[in-house]
Structure formats: structure tokens, C-alpha cells
């Protein structure tokens, strides 16, 4: 079919048009508008141009700095633990001779059907001071006295880390399992015949096949953690003493609690944008390096 390429292109834009229009309105415009707002100062709907006043305020704002530090701490501790756990479980589940494989897989994957609000309910109630988790740990003689999960600044962070790990490990595991299933079983067979030990097989065959998944899950988890909101808003409300305050929660509180301060909140939100951009850049570099022979 000879068709003028101009006409083909136009047809293409008709297909993509509705999405592009909506995205311009609900994505591109807000991104730019947010940048503009970050240069405005004032309360409620009354703005005036403030230049870099909001950025100066960031350097003076102890809550912001705490939120930034908390978010980065959660990120650095939680993401590697979860990815390693997801990989470990996937490798364990990939053994075809394993009994009850489907059952284990379904069970471990189950947490990711719960809404973030629903599992916040579960964690808040299970980790109460006299709650089931403390009782259980005491019964096993791991603890002498209950841990104040919700009222101690350190343990509240641990609780949030446990919660996120519970919710997302199975989700990430699925990606590892898919990658493992793409490896030809004959490769392992050949390695076994050549007498290559299992640990070396894992290092030379399994691990290289999983690197792209590690990259993918790390990036998506990192972006997810940078946006952490539902759990902290429902389990700890950012407390105690802002120990679990995250950037997203702080933006929400600045904008929609008390007297809204949209300009400053937009500035804080751009901190997340910049962090995501930096991380995406690292991912880009890592992906490029991998492609090099």
C-alpha cells in the first residue's frame, strides 16, 4: 500500500492525540506550574514573587532537613535489604524440584494486593506496645521487654522499613523469577556436566542474567520510597518527633494542613524531582556501561 508518509504521520497523531492532550494538561503543565510556584511566597491563594526566598528557607528548615535525611535513610537501608531478599526468594523458588512451589510463590506475592492504607492498618495494630509482634518475640525469648515500635524514634523507622519490605518483596520477586525462567536449563546442565560448583554457577550464569532486574527493581523501589506517603501518614503520622517524616508527607502537610503554603511546598517537591533526576542519571550510566563489551 503506497501511502503518503505525511498522511500516515497524521493518523498516528490522531491515535496518540487524546493521551498527549491529557498529559499536557495534567502532567506537563503542573510540572512547569510547580516550578513557577516554587518562586512564589505567600499563604493560601495569595502569591507574590519571592525569587529564591523558598530555597533559602529550605536551608533554615529543620523539619525539611529531617524529612530529607529520613527519606534517604529509609532508601539506603530498605531498598538493598528488600532487593537482596527478593532475589534470594526467587532463586529458592526457581528450583523445579521444590515441592509446593506455586503455593509458596502465591503466599509471598500476596501482600502486594493490599492497598497501602489496608496494610498500614495491619502494621499499626500488630506493632502496638502490647501487640501480637511483641508478644510473639517475648514468647520466643528474643525480647525481655516489649519494643515501643510506635513511640520510639529509632523503632518507628524500623517499623516503616519492615512494613515496606513486607508489602513489596514479593512484588519485586516476581521480576526476578521471570528473569530466572528465561535462562535456558541446558546451560546449567552443561555446567553441571563440566563439574562447575553450584556457587560458581550462580556467579557466572544466574547473577549476570539478574543484573538488569536488579537495576530495574532498584530504580522503581527508589522512586517509590522517595514518594513514601501512605504508610507514614497512616501508621506514624510522621512521628514520633518527626522521626518518620518523609518529603511527600511534609509537602502534604505544608499544602493541605493548617494554612497552605503552596509556593514553599512546590519548592520541597522539586527537591524530590532533582533526587529522581540524579538517580535516573546513575541508572542511565549503569545501563550504558553494561551494554559496552
Amino acid at each position, binding site marked *: 500500500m503506497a501511502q503518503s508518509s505525511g498522511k500516515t504521520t497524521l493518523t498516528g497523531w490522531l491515535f496518540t492525540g487524546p493521551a498527549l492532550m491529557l498529559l499536557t494538561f495534567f502532567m506537563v503543565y503542573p510540572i512547569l506550574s510547580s516550578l513557577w*510556584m516554587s518562586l512564589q511566597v505567600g499563604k493560601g491563594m495569595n502569591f507574590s514573587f519571592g525569587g529564591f526566598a523558598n530555597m533559602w528557607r529550605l536551608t533554615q528548615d529543620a523539619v525539611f532537613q529531617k524529612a530529607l535525611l529520613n527519606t534517604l535513610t529509609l532508601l539506603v537501608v530498605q531498598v538493598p535489604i528488600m532487593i537482596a531478599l527478593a532475589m534470594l526468594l526467587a532463586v529458592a523458588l526457581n528450583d523445579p524440584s521444590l515441592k509446593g512451589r506455586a503455593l509458596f510463590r502465591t503466599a509471598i506475592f500476596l501482600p502486594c494486593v493490599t492497598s497501602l492504607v489496608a496494610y498500614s492498618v495491619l502494621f499499626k495494630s500488630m506493632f502496638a506496645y502490647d501487640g501480637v509482634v511483641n508478644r510473639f518475640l517475648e514468647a520466643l525469648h528474643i525480647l525481655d521487654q516489649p519494643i515501643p515500635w510506635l513511640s520510639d524514634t529509632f523503632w518507628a523507622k524500623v517499623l516503616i522499613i519492615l512494613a515496606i519490605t513486607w508489602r513489596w518483596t514479593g512484588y519485586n520477586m516476581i521480576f526476578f523469577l521471570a528473569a530466572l525462567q528465561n535462562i535456558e536449563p541446558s546451560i546449567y546442565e552443561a555446567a553441571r556436566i563440566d563439574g562447575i560448583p553450584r556457587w560458581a554457577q550462580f556467579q557466572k550464569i544466574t547473577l549476570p542474567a539478574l543484573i538488569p532486574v536488579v537495576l530495574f527493581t532498584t530504580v522503581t523501589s527508589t522512586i517509590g520510597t522517595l514518594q513514601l506517603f501512605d504508610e507514614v501518614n497512616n501508621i506514624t503520622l510522621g512521628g514520633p518527633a518527626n522521626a518518620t517524616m518523609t518529603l*511527600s508527607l511534609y509537602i*502534604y502537610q505544608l499544602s493541605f494542613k493548617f494554612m497552605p503554603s503552596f509556593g514553599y511546598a512546590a519548592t520541597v517537591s522539586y527537591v524530590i524531582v532533582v533526587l529522581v533526576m540524579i538517580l535516573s542519571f546513575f541508572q542511565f550510566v549503569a545501563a550504558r556501561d553494561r551494554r559496552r563489551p
Partner: protein
Amino acid sequence: MVYTLLSIAAFVSVFPFLWLIVGATNISSDILSGKTTPGHALFDNIVKLTQQVDLVQLFYNSTKIAVISTILTLIVASLAGYGFEIFKSKFSERVFAGLLAMLSVPFAALMIPLFVTMAQLHLINTHTAVILPTVASIFVIFYFRQASKSFPMELRDAARVDGLREWQIFLFVYMPVMRSTYAAATIITFMASWNNYLWPLIVLQTNEMKTITLAVASLLSAYVPDYGVVMVATTLATLPTLLIFFILQRQFVQGLLGSLK
């Protein structure tokens, strides 16, 4: 060793679900003191819940928002995914790369301007405001584009020879062929909408407009939450997604993996 590891992982994963169901039958103080055996308070909890919230209204709101936004998202995103893959040009590839770059823009950076826009359009406290910004999901567009790579070009060419117009090819050839892709996208989109919290929390302000997810959160945020009641509400809010998961587990997993291909 492997079995021990997997058994612990499976137990930790499943226990909170049992906790949820047992919790729905207990009174609040028993839940907070870690009681793991079923109690007799289920009926009382349900009655208290129905006194505090309008369950029918909440489920109606959640379902309405999830169904409408799923249908619109599927239409808009599949058209776009198809368009980007089938009618490739140098410029359209650049636009697509731009979309992918926006995929990682955090929602927190959008919500304030979106809220101001909705206020200017007088859409605060409407379901339209909840649905509209979610319709053009870059993730789902990307998903459909990846899936469109497996759409056989011979089918399209044959349809063109038969004199079908481009929109007819999309409607009568592409859509039926890609039905498993649509099924997977439906599950992912529906669940995302059903479980959505932050944006509805911002734009929905009165009880008559709220979703079941918002209602659970507000019961939990009471000064002294009644956990028995909260557990019943949470069970009800989780049931639909749990059912979808068990019935359509394969498509669900496929939907997740679609983004990695």
C-alpha cells in the same frame, strides 16, 4: 534450609491476612493486646461500622471511580500505545522518550498545581477530579506500546488490503487480538484506582464523596481508633482486590511483567 527460609517468608507474608480476619471478630482492646484467636465481636463490629459510615455509598463511589477510570485509561492508553508503535516517526519517538522521562516525576511534584487547577475548574470534591489526572497513565501507554510490538504486521497489512480504515483496524483487528493485554491492563489499573489514597484524600472532602480506602484511613486516624471496626472495614476494602487476584492471578502477574519486557 530452603524450605525453612520459604516457610518463614510465606508465614510472614500470610500472617497479617489471618490477623486481619481474626481481628474483625475481636474487640479493640483484644486486638491491641495481641489476641490471635477468633472472638465473638464480629457482628457488633459490623453494626458499629454501619453506624459510622455509609458502606453502600462508599462501595458505590469506589466502584464508580475505579470502573470509569479503568475504561477511560484503557481506551486512551491503548490508542496511544498503538499509535506510537505503528506510526513511528523520528518526532514521535522523541515525544515518547519525553513521556518515559516523565514516568519518574513524583506525584508530590504535581499535586499542588493539580489541586489549584481543579479548584479553578470548580471540580474540588467531585469524582471527575479524582479520575481525570489518572486517565493518561504513562505506565499503561508504555505497557500497550511494548505489547503492540507482538501485534502481527501481516494482519494489519491484510486489513488495509481489504480496505479497512485505520480506526477500523484498531477496533476490529487490534483490540480482539490483544485481549489478554487488555485483561492484564484492566487488573492493574482497577487495583491502582481502588487502592489510590493521596490524590482522593486531597480532592474529596465530604463523606458522601469518599472512597472505601479513604474511609478506612479516616477510621484509623481517630483519636482512639476502634480496631475491631477498622478491621472489618479493611477486610471489606481488601476483598475485591483479593478476589481479582485469586481469579486472575496469571493475568495480574503478566500485567506487572509487561513493564519490564
